């Protein structure tokens, strides 16, 4: 079909189409090679390992069928609750991040003085985002972004005397030291923890803000003008013009945030898998755990994409 027309009389020439096809493959071949080497093979091997029991001495693998998976779902009391907590975290954090980054992006998009400075400011967390730096600054424990508001671990910070710390540390914490006086210790502490966690959430929103901002700037002003002429109020303009146009970006941001949260090295599931592999040397078990985790993430993202994707408004064809 495709090669025949040029082949008349000459056995080894390639048609234009074939040449193009070869070119096209040539460009993506590096990726295919990289994928096979660094993703596909490890993934397959990891799956294989998950059905083995690996002994450290001499690294021998012993097939044990579904035992590892049975262990995960039936015997291991730690893992499943952790997994569910992490999924819960993702489900809670993602809308919050989505909301805040959108709000901030909308605000940054308006004509305010010192806009460039503010934009750089909001992007700062991405640049200095070394995990340990952020952890120490926010005094969070390894439990990391913990489940319910108000249940935060303080294992990461050096604060021994809470009162002394509160008095000494100016900032969000100190705002709550003032709250303490007005609201009483319990409520103030809960509010304090909420603010702390909020700070952490905001710190994870840098890229999302950037994406939204880029998207907002891509909306041509004529649309807004047309809406205004038709008498739309500010609120209506947002919901009828801005919101639909950036809905594809919202989907991207949601997916990105979900992935980011799941892959975050500080979440407990990841720490557990890591410990199983590199401290307890249960390579088989840790592979099974990792695959379970992977499937959970995959299923969740598929569901979310299906649900949200249907509501996304695409402007014309590209």
């Amino acid at each position, binding site marked *: 079909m495709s090669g025949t027309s040029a082949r008349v009389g000459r056995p080894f020439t390639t048609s234009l189409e074939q040449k193009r096809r070869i070119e*096209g493959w040539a460009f993506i071949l590096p990726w295919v090679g990289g994928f096979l080497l660094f993703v596909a093979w490890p993934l397959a091997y990891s799956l294989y390992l998950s059905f083995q029991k690996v002994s450290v001495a001499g690294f021998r693998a012993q097939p044990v069928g579904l035992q590892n998976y049975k262990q995960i779902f039936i015997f291991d009391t730690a893992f499943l609750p952790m997994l569910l907590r992490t999924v819960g975290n993702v489900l809670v954090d993602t809308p919050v991040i989505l909301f805040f980054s959108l709000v901030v992006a909308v605000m940054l998009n308006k004509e305010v003085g010192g806009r460039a400075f503010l934009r750089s400011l909001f992007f700062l967390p991405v640049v200095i985002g070394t995990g340990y730096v952020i952890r120490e600054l926010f005094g969070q424990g390894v439990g990391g972004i913990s489940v319910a508001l108000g249940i935060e671990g303080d294992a990461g910070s050096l604060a021994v005397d809470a009162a002394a710390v509160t008095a000494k540390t100016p900032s969000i914490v100190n705002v709550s030291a003032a709250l303490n006086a007005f609201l009483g210790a319990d409520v103030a502490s809960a509010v304090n923890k909420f603010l702390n966690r909020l700070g952490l959430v905001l710190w994870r929103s840098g890229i999302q803000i950037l994406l939204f901002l880029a998207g907002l700037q891509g909306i041509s002003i004529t649309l807004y003008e047309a809406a205004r002429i038709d008498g739309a109020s500010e609120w209506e303009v947002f919901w009828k013009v801005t919101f639909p146009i950036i809905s594809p970006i919202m989907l991207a941001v949601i997916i990105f945030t979900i992935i980011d949260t799941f892959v975050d090295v500080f979440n407990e599931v990841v720490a557990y898998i890591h410990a199983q592999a590199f401290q307890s040397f249960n390579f088989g078990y840790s592979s099974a755990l990792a695959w379970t*985790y992977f499937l959970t993430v995959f299923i969740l993202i598929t569901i979310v994409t299906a649900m949200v994707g249907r509501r996304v408004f695409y402007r014309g064809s590209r």
Partner: protein
Amino acid sequence: MRGRIAGAWRRLAQWRDTRSMVIRHRSYKAFLGVALYLVLLSLGFVFLYPVIYMVSTSLMTPADLVAPDVLYIPTAFRLDNYQIAWLGLSFVKSAGTSAAISLLGALGHLLSCSLIGYGFARYKLKAHKLLFPLVVFTLIVPPQTLLVPLYIQFSRYGWMNTILPFVVPAFVGQGLKGALFVIVFRQFFTQLPWELDDSARIDGAGGWRIFTKIMLPLSRSAMLVVFLFSMVWHWNDHYLPGIFLRLESTTLAVRLKSFWSVVRAAHAAVLQTTSSYQQELMQAHSEGVGMAASFLVIVAPLVVYLFLQRYFTESVERTGLVE
């Protein structure tokens, strides 16, 4: 006569109503503007405060940190904390490793992802229907799922304790968030007009020529985004280098991790044996040193960012990543 007065009164009332309406509208707008600014500034504070805290804490002596009346400005500027941190982090060696990984990794991403993204964008292969979702797929796979096999693989190649595990995957479009960069480039190249292709081919240029001489030079903003992000993410990665590199030759980010635990252990060891004021001082000292170490780790990306901040934010807009 009455009609005239009524008319005049009516006009006066209208003027008054319109005028107050305009004033109300204007002051409403002004109020919104100010409120907006306040909200933005407070949020900005959330982002800026930790950095300020870090810098000011790192410059204080333990006595300052413990004193309740000294908040941001130290009574005496001391670089002691930095001296300790510098040694504790083996700064020069670790920074060298960090820089090597960051720069080479970013370069690898730049070269490979542009190539690959271009291939996905400007050629129509049936295989793309399968391959491109696979690209997105690599983003979804948690690294832990691949880690044990990769560890085994890299040991077999003899790549352990070198920067190869980081650099080589980057040169084939994998590596730290490599798929994301492929997506960025693909998005960018999709938007370039096809006429460029056509006219170049009419002039006899082959695919590679078109890519290097025409398309790539046009993709400056995408290249910038990819390079900057890749560099920053490589620099800040404290997980993978901890696995593939030994402690003596690892990156700054990993050194920071072990530094904090060393500092804390030293502090805990002394905790039982001293007076409570001494304890506070020790604690404060650990905090100060820790903050100094943290600052040393982020100072490089911070400086790069300060000089190139405009490009960070602007380039994303120009990649056409978002419509």
